[in-house]
């Protein structure tokens, strides 16, 4: 078996040992979905009227889709590398014949597998209980959204790697990462669709990679973009993925040179 597939499986085994963390994570996730669901459902109480160009079913699908994309995209253990660097635990990873990024991505994917399976179950149960009006996209739109989500996963991973590298230069980067993480969630559309924001701010955010994490793929699925906008969006998203990957490689190459392998 491929070494990274094995990392994925080993990490999965470790996660299955952590029932308490899993339960707490579910509580957090459910609280978030329920509060967003009820908020938007009451704002769109008249199903005949839309809001900011979203129909009732599109908005409810956005909210439930958020739960899935938060599990699939906006989670990355790459951020944890800051602690590994600060405490010198990165040493064990550097001493083994493997690609650090591939290793970390395998850990991420196993994490995401558990989270997505759990979130999908929650979303299905909630949609059934509340009889949520769901937007059913054309298979082609769903496929394009799937492509975009795959790119989002990579994009968030590389952004995480870039930010975690701050640990090479500062032992206090934890606060920075926490603040930055929150800003990224906001700018990605993981709290609400970016259309809610004033035009100037929404336009400014679109110049950054973050809307491609959640807002863009969800809107591709909701068929709110023209074909040209989708094509342009996917090209820009790919550009950001490659750009962040190159940036991460570059920063880590420099960072490892100043790694102090603390402790031990």
């Amino acid at each position, binding site marked *: 078996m491929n070494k990274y597939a094995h990392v994925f499986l080993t990490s999965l*085994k470790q996660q299955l040992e952590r029932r308490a963390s899993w339960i707490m994570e579910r509580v957090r996730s459910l609280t978030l979905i329920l509060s967003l669901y009820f908020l938007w459902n009451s704002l769109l109480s008249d199903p005949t009227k839309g809001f900011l160009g979203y129909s009732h079913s599109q908005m409810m699908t956005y909210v439930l889709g958020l739960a899935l994309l938060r599990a699939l995209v906006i989670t990355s253990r790459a951020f944890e590398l800051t602690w590994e660097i600060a405490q010198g635990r990165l040493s064990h990873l*550097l*001493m*083994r*014949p493997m690609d650090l990024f591939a290793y970390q991505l395998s850990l991420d994917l196993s994490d995401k597998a558990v989270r997505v399976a759990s979130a999908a179950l929650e979303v299905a149960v909630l949609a059934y209980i509340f009889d949520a009006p769901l937007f059913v996209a054309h298979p082609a739109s769903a496929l394009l959204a799937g492509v975009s989500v795959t790119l989002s996963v990579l994009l968030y991973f590389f952004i995480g790697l870039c930010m975690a590298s701050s640990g090479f230069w500062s032992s206090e980067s934890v606060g920075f990462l926490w603040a930055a993480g929150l800003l990224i969630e906001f700018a990605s559309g993981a709290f609400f669709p970016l259309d809610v924001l004033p035009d100037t701010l929404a336009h400014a955010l679109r110049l950054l990679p973050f809307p491609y994490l959640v807002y863009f793929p969800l809107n591709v699925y909701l068929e709110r973009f023209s074909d040209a906008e989708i094509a342009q969006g996917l090209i820009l998203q790919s550009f950001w993925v490659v750009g962040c990957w190159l940036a991460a490689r570059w920063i880590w190459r420099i960072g490892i*040179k100043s790694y102090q392998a603390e402790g031990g």
Partner: protein
Amino acid sequence: MPAIIADALRKTFKIPKRKPGLRAAIASFFHKETLAIEAVKGITLSIQDSEVVGFLGPNGAGKTTTLKMLSGLLYPTSGTLRTLGYVATDRDKDFLKSITLVMGNRSQLWWEIPVADSLLLNKEIYELSDSRYQENLDELVTLLEIGDVLAMAPKKLSLGQRMKAELAAALLHRPRLLLLDEPTLGLDVVMQNKIRKFLTDYNRRHGATILLTSHNMQDLTELCKRVIIIDHGSLIYDGLLKSLIESYAPQKRIRIDFAQAPTLAQCQGAGLTATRDGEAFVNAPRAQVPDVTSSLLGRSGKDLPAIIDISIDEPSAEDVIRTIFAQGNLRTRP
């Protein structure tokens, strides 16, 4: 070919520096001052294949920093270094497959899942074939006696069991070079002995080169013929442990067991110091030990009580090294 060649190896760290107090804390928020600390000051050394070398020095001497440079984790500030013929910091795949670094207080095992799962993962990471894996694992399980530990998670293991599991994970790929930082740290005497015996066997079986740091002198005396001592980042001794002891402790202690306790006058007459009932000792220069011994035997039952037993002791390495560290440097460099 030497396993390690280091020439004028130097490492300088920049560490943040500030005075105590709130004002200094606020000032350092805007402007951080750093202080350059020279942890390793131009070390030159060469270690041959299959050698077992003890690396010692007081805390903060630069031992661990040197090990980390040899393994490629730290970039030397200057100097040249070849570990197993590679530039260590290039982290070449074949290099990483030939080396291991074990730090006594660092774990590479996955905390919550059975040790066997961590080992299986290492099998894949080091690309070991099934047969090679099984062969290496069987050997490690036997030598380290960890058959019962494999099914347990590290968080459930005692420190000694965990250290053995850690060694198994670190040696599963059968490295040619072992860099061990305090491998017996915190272990009880029985476990320390087992680890030492294991390392001796491993070195003998596979011709592996071992470089270890330890504050446990027994580790050094039992495992290493050669020691390298560094202090304040500089190499102060590189040679045989035996020569160090000989040059540093030129006397041996002759212990005599008498049939009955000698009187004070008898002791003084023979230059002896009485220790307890019926026992006494005399320190003699190495070259004169045979003469002193035969003279004592000649006086047995005459002006001294009858001698039952006589033994000649080397001063312990621990005593010698403790003296060296206490004095801060070596009198002479042998």
